[in-house]
């Protein structure tokens, strides 16, 4: 699977796919780590605009990336969460580890 992403000096925005399950999460894990190392990323943004479904495999992948960014002194943000993804985030306590950007903050 090819993931869409954008990089800009030290920052990486990953557009997460429609569904994040074990299969997708394990590929995202590898690809994100490769990009973080190759582009010396310090600021990682997960853009959930396209994501309708995520299970606990996605949670594990996000916690792992947030740890990795923590080690290298970087930060992680999540943007454009659907109501569904927001609910999953809240249940898993993810907002304690990852800054969830609310839409209002754009304007």
């Amino acid at each position, binding site marked *: 699977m090819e993931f869409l992403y954008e990089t800009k000096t030290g920052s990486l925005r990953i557009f997460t796919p429609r*569904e994040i*399950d*074990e*299969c997708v999460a*394990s590929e995202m*894990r590898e690809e994100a780590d490769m990009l973080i190392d190759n582009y010396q990323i310090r600021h990682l943004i997960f853009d959930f605009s396209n994501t*309708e*479904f995520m*299970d*606990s*495999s996605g*949670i*594990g*992948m996000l*916690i*792992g990336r947030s740890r990795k960014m923590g080690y290298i002194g970087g930060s992680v943000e999540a943007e454009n969460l659907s109501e*569904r993804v927001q609910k*999953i985030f809240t*249940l*898993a306590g993810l907002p304690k580890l990852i800054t969830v950007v609310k839409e209002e903050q754009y304007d």
Partner: protein
Amino acid sequence: MIREQEQEMSMRFDSYPENEQFARMVVTAFLMDLNPTVDEMADVKTAVSEAVTNAIIHGYEDCVGQVSLTCRKHGKDVMVTVSDQGKGIADVERAREPFFTTKPEAERSGMGFCFMEAFMDEVHITSAEGRGTSVEMKKHLHLPAGE
């Protein structure tokens, strides 16, 4: 032809992660005529995904086995059973605890059973070490037809 009020479907598939999406799609299609809300459908889909992932990742951790999935609908009641003949769970009560995982090194978060419990009305786990695990989940769909 007289239609039974209760309908059941059942499938078995090899424990490859690629089959998770397939399992979710089958359950979604099976429940479509009950007109669940988008949220209710997502609840069931997530619970199925959790149980199937567990069978694949934990039950058959270093082998390939068969995962069974049964789904029953009766009125607005939905019942899903996912079972494996894998390694089983040593301590079921502990496994249900939030953030408990036997695979922290594989970046598991220990949230699977919590999601099943949050999204379904009832979750029953039957397991025996070395014999396998069966997770039976129930949900009553509340809202009337439509969105």
